[in-house]
C-alpha cells in the first residue's frame, strides 16, 4: 500500500508500561505487571491501524501510554517526528488537541454534571481553538455532524442513550480539530444495530476530516471492517502486524489463527476449522519465558520455551513473531 511511503504521523518505539504491584509484605520481592513490554509500530496519516487482542494483552494500556494518561515506563512516542514522551506537562497540555480519544463506556465517559454545551465549550477553550464568539456556530455544526439535534446541547448526559452518548464523545473529540483519534473499544459496549451506526459515523468522519485512527478493539469482525492494518497483541507484546487482507487471509501466528477461528460466526463454513486453545492466559506478572504463547501453542517446541521470537517481516507488509511462521503458513490450518 502506498501509505507506507509516507512519513508516519505517530511512531511508537520500544514502549514499555510496567505497573508496580502492592507488596505483600516488607520482605517479598517487588513485583510488576508487565502490561506492555517493548512494542514498536508506526501509524501513517489517513489510515486506520487496529490493535486487537484479549483482555490483559495490553492493547488499552498502549493507547493510554501514547496519550500519557499513564506515564510510560520506557520507550518513546513520536508525533510528526517530535518526541511526545519528553515533553513537560505544560508543553504536553498544549499539544493535546492533536491526539484525541474516544472511550468504551458511554456511561462513564461524560461528566454527569455538565451539559453538552459546557463540555464542548470547555474543550475548545482549553485548547484555544477559536474565539468565543465563533464557538456557538461551531458547536451547532458539530452536533449536526455527529447526527444529534441542536437542542441536545442544553441537556445533561443522563438523558441520552448509549449510542447518543458515544456520538457526544465523538463530537467532544472532534471539537479541537485533532489529527489522530485513538478509539479505545469505542463501539464494544453498544448493541449491534447501534454499533453499526457508530462505525459508519467514524468511517465518514475519517473520510471527510482526513483523520488517522488507532482503533483498539477485541472484536475481530469490527476490526476487519474498519481497519487498513492490524496489530495482534498477546500478553503485552506484538505477535503479528500486517495489512488487513493479509492478516485475515493468511494469519501467520498460531495465536492469530486460534483467535480468528474462535470467533463465533453466522457463516456455515467457518464452523469446521476451529482451534480450541487450552488453558487460560498466563499472568502478566510472570510471563512465560521465550515465546509468551508457548504454554498454549499447539506447535510449541523447546526452542519456543527458551528463545524470544523476533518480530520479523514475512513480506514488506506482514510481520510476525513466531519461529515457525513459514512452516506453519505452508501447512493447512489444523
Amino acid at each position, binding site marked *: 500500500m502506498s501509505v507506507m511511503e509516507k512519513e508516519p504521523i505517530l511512531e511508537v518505539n520500544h514502549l514499555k508500561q510496567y505497573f508496580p504491584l502492592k507488596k505483600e509484605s516488607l520482605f517479598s520481592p517487588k513485583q510488576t505487571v508487565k502490561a506492555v513490554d517493548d512494542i514498536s509500530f508506526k501509524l501513517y496519516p489517513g489510515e486506520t491501524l487496529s490493535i486487537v487482542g484479549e483482555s490483559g494483552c495490553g492493547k488499552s494500556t498502549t493507547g493510554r501510554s501514547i496519550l500519557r494518561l499513564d506515564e510510560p515506563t520506557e520507550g518513546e512516542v513520536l508525533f510528526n517526528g517530535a518526541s511526545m514522551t519528553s515533553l513537560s506537562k505544560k508543553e504536553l497540555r498544549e499539544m493535546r488537541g492533536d491526539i484525541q480519544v474516544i472511550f468504551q463506556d458511554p456511561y462513564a465517559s461524560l461528566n454527569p454534571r455538565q451539559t453538552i454545551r459546557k463540555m464542548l465549550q470547555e474543550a475548545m477553550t482549553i485548547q484555544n481553538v477559536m474565539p468565543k464568539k465563533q464557538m456557538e456556530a461551531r458547536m451547532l*455544526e458539530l452536533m449536526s455532524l455527529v447526527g444529534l439535534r441542536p437542542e441536545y446541547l442544553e441537556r445533561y448526559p443522563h438523558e441520552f442513550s448509549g449510542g447518543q452518548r458515544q456520538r457526544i464523545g465523538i463530537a*467532544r473529540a472532534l471539537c479541537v480539530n485533532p489529527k489522530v483519534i485513538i478509539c479505545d473499544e469505542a463501539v464494544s459496549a453498544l448493541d449491534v444495530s447501534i454499533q453499526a451506526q457508530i462505525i459508519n459515523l467514524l468511517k465518514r468522519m475519517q473520510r471527510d476530516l482526513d483523520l488517522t485512527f488507532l482503533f483498539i478493539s477485541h472484536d475481530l469482525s469490527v476490526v476487519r471492517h474498519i481497519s487498513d492494518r492490524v496489530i495482534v497483541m498477546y500478553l503485552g507484546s506484538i505477535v503479528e502486524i500486517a495489512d488487513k487482507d493479509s492478516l485475515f487471509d493468511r494469519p501467520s501466528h498460531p495465536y492469530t489463527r486460534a483467535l480468528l477461528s474462535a470467533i463465533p460466526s453466522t457463516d456455515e463454513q467457518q464452523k469446521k476449522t476451529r482451534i480450541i486453545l487450552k488453558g487460560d492466559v498466563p499472568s502478566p506478572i510472570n510471563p512465560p519465558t521465550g515465546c509468551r504463547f508457548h504454554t498454549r501453542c499447539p506447535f510449541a517446541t523447546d526452542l519456543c520455551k527458551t528463545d524470544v521470537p523476533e518480530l520479523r517481516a514475512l513480506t514488506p507488509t506482514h510481520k510476525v513473531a513466531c519461529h515457525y511462521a513459514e512452516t506453519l503458513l505452508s501447512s493447512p490450518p489444523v
Partner: protein
Amino acid sequence: MASKATVSPNVDLAKARQHTRRERWQSFRRVMTQNKAAMAGAIIIAAYFLIMLVAPVLAPYDPFEISLEDKLTPPSADHWMGTDDKGRDILSRILYGSRLSIGVGVASVAFGAFFGIILGLIAGYYGKWVDTIVSRLLDVMLAFPGILLALAIISALGPGLVNVTIAVGVFSIPLFARIVRGSTMEVKQLEYIDAIRTLGANDFTIIVKHIFPNVLSPIIVQGSMRLATAILSAAGLSFLGLGAQPPSPEWGAMLANGRDFLFSAPYMAIFPGMMISVLVLGFNLFGDGLRDALDPKLKK
C-alpha cells in the same frame, strides 16, 4: 446543512435550556417528596433554624435574668418548661441556647469539611506518596478513640466554646477526608476524567470542575450525619464543663447544671436533652434519606 442549523435554533436552545432547568428541579422535588425520612428530617432542621432566628421574639423571659424567688418551679402555664436553680426560665434559655448549640455544630462541621475535602481531594487525586502521607496523617487522627482527640486539643487550648468548635472540627477532618479520598479515587478512574485530561486540562481544573462536583453527594450525606454527631460531641464537651461556661444557655451546659438537681427538678435535664435529641434525629433522618436518594450504593 450546518449553516442552516446556525440560523434558526436560537429560540429552540433557550427553550431547551429552560426545559433542562425545570427537569432538574422536578427531579429534586421528586426525590424529596418520595423520601419521607429526608422530608421529616428537613422539616425538623428547618424548624430549629427558625427557632434560632426568632428566639428573641419567641422567648417569654430574659434567659439570663436571675430571680431566686422563682427558682426550681416545675413546668406551669407561666414557665412551660419550668425554671432552673437560679429561677431563670428554661424555655427562654433553650430558645436562646439554640444559637450556641446549632452554631457550634455547624461551624465545626464546616471547619472539618473544608480541610477534610481539600485533603481528601489531593490524596485521592495525586495518589502515590501524597496519598501515603495524607493517609498516615488521617490514621493518626483516627487512632484517638472517639472524642479523646477533641479532649486533647481542648487541654492544650483551654476550655471554651470556640475551642470546642475547633476541637470537634479537627475531629471531623479525617471523616470527611476519608470519604472524599475514596470517592475521588473512584471518580478519577472514570473515562470522562481521562477525556478532559487528553483535552489538556490542568490538575486544578480537573479537581475543581470535574471531580469535586461528582463527589458532592457523599459529602452532603456525610455532612448531614456528621452534623448530628458534632452537635452531640459539642454538647458532650460542654456537659463536661469544657465548653460553654455558665451562665451560658448552651444545651449541654444546661444539662450538666440539671444533673445536680436530678432528684428535685428532673425537668432541668430533660428539656435540653430532648432538644438535642430531636435536632440530632433530624440530621440523621435527613442524612439517611439523602443517602438512599442520592446513591443507593452508599448504604453503609
